[in-house]
């Protein structure tokens, strides 16, 4: 599925303007999910039969092109290349651009394959002339200053991690997170780090704890089922105050769920999944490009606060490939406070109770600072302790270091004004932005608050952000309203609230948000 635009794309659109089908297999299962409208154009191949009635019911227009026949008329021709030609012509893409990409992708396959593809594209291009006319894209008049990048959310997360300083990754593949790890494998090789494939998620999480204990910023990436396995050791990292970053590319749950589709339903386990009182960082990127910033930020936070940072991405961001402006350069002063070698008789206190809650961490190899990191509750020296005062002091310390830290402006994206607001997070933010843009054009001002820092909560900043708001729409992609419950638990929602929530696999589209807000604002 591809969306073309002259402006930066933030979300999937309301419906398909073109649905091109090489065949009609499996249609029955998904027909109801195709967002078609009377302005849509369905292109089919007459050899595959009539366009199915379920789709015609939408009122969409039809066009038939014999893609298979056209392809077969060309030696080594393929129907998908014919389709490429059709779509390129319909969208108004420059023919030279398509040819340039073809050369880049297929050039290595030799002249014969190249010629066949070119001919097939040409055939499709010409055949498109017979189709009903669609709005064409005009050539953009804006040239982006820094150049443009093409990346997926998963690649962006990987790059953000590397920029943040990650130099050890333990990898266990799982859909849809595998690409984060596969991107990082050669990247770490180029930049001077290590990636190891491990036997399971339990090995992944424990290896990165060990590596981080050794002084090297470390990360792994997984999805819901893997995160569930990791929860025990996430608690170990929290209790032993070992910095780690775990990227969770969320997918349909629960259990095996819908691996290749998106959902936001890991919020609960990310926030509450550790046994005991184990506060830790939870952050969430809200666009493909934001995956880079947020992951880099997560590394900085984890290292500074010596704890777990969970990055909640999702399949919709992770596997979406977006062409956009080159992201802004960000440098965090990523630092882990390390202990200096101890000389004399002073004994090093790994878990010293400091005002900030952060205690300098000795890197193995530092003389005089030997200590045993422990999941057992401990006294400031790290010796196991079941005393009430030690437990209280260490719990306070581990909480204080998170709540007293100044997270700056990155805690959320606050956009626009208005006394009606959308409160959302993650991949729903794009649809909200597009909806707000349309409503603004009709004269309705809507504010957007998209939370990037989910934990620890920021009550004062939140209250300031929603100052003057009289109606609040909460948008999330879960069945049970996990985000709404989280908000009610931790924040004051001082005005009437509506929710728009639906589980995956279908994305929440801009028109749905627009419609609900428009209806609400007119009452």
């Amino acid at each position, binding site marked *: 599925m591809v969306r073309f635009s002259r402006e930066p794309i933030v979300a999937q659109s309301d419906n398909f303007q073109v649905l091109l089908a090489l065949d009609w297999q499996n249609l029955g299962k998904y027909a109801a999910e195709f967002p078609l409208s009377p302005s849509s154009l369905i292109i089919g191949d007459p050899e595959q039969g009539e366009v199915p009635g379920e789709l015609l019911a939408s009122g969409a227009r039809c066009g038939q092109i014999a893609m298979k026949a056209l392809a077969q008329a060309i030696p080594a021709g393929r129907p998908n290349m014919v389709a490429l030609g059709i779509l390129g012509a319909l969208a108004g893409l420059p023919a030279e651009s398509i040819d340039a990409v073809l050369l880049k992708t297929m050039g290595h396959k030799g002249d014969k394959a190249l010629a066949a593809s070119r001919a097939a594209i040409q055939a499709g291009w010409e055949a498109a002339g017979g189709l009903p006319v669609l709005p064409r894209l005009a050539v953009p008049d804006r040239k982006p200053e820094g150049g443009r990048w093409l990346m997926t959310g998963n690649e962006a997360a990987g790059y953000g991690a590397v920029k943040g300083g990650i130099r050890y990754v333990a990898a266990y593949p799982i859909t849809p997170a595998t690409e984060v790890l596969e991107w990082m494998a050669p990247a770490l090789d180029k930049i001077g780090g290590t990636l190891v494939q491990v036997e399971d998620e339990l090995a992944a999480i424990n290896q990165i704890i060990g590596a981080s204990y050794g002084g090297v910023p470390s990360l792994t990436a997984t999805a819901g089922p893997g995160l569930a396995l990791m929860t025990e050791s996430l608690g170990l990292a929290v209790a032993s105050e070992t910095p780690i970053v775990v990227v969770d590319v969320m997918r349909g749950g629960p259990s095996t769920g819908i691996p290749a589709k998106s959902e936001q339903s890991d919020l609960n386990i990310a926030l509450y999944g550790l046994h005991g009182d184990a506060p830790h960082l939870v952050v969430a990127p809200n666009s493909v490009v934001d995956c880079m910033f947020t992951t880099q930020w997560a590394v900085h936070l984890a290292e500074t606060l010596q704890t777990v940072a969970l990055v909640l991405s999702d399949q919709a961001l992770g596997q979406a490939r977006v062409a956009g402006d080159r992201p802004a350069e960000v440098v965090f002063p990523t630092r882990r406070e390390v202990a200096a070698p101890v000389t004399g008789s002073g004994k090093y206190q790994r878990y010293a109770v400091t005002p900030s809650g952060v205690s300098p961490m000795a890197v193995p190899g530092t003389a005089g600072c030997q200590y045993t990191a422990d999941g*057992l509750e401990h006294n400031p020296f790290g010796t*196991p*302790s*079941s005393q009430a005062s030690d437990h209280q002091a260490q719990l306070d310390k581990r909480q204080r270091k998170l709540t007293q830290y100044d997270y700056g402006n990155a805690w959320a994206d606050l956009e626009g004004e208005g006394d009606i607001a959308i409160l959302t997070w993650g991949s729903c933010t794009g649809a909200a932005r597009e909806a707000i843009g349309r409503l603004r054009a009709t004269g309705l001002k809507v504010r957007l608050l998209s939370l990037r820092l989910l934990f620890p909560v920021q009550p004062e900043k939140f209250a300031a952000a929603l100052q003057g708001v009289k109606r609040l729409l909460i948008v999330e992609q879960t069945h049970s309203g996990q985000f709404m419950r989280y908000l009610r638990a931790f924040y004051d929602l001082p005005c009437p609230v509506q929710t728009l929530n639906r589980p995956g696999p279908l994305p929440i589209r801009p028109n749905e948000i627009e419609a609900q807000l428009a209806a609400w604002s007119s009452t």
Partner: protein
Amino acid sequence: MTRQPTKAGQSIEELFAHASQMERTTAERYRELADMMSTHNNRELAELFRRMADIEWLHVYNVNALCREMNIDEPPATVRPVGSGEVPDFEDQHYLHRPYHALMLARGYEERARDFYAKLAADAMNEDIRQAALKLAAEEEMHIGELDKWLVRYPKPEAGWDEDLDPPVELE
């Protein structure tokens, strides 16, 4: 089953290094056992082990004195551990032991050491080593005698000494 290859019989210096290290290790071992019994609230035994540690330090002194007698340099403290000999075995301990048990075990360890030196003397490659080994064996024999005197004060406990109606609970 101890069948440690030992260098003790190779020269007189090696022999005394071994003996000295043995006593040293034994002294440290009794200190550790004292701490162990202290942790497990057997104060009587903790006290006994502390006294035995002190006595073992005396034995170190005695070995060094023997060295001077035989015009040999005092052996340095070595890093290499020695075979068991008279060093108490951790595996023989029990948290409910009474002094009788500890002293009987100690007696067994001293016998082990005495037998070791006696065998060394029998297998000695020269007269000097033989004499030295015999002296050390005699030392151990003396220790056994002292333990016997001590044991008079501590008769064998009744059966059921190892029953604990309130067994320990681990806190941390």
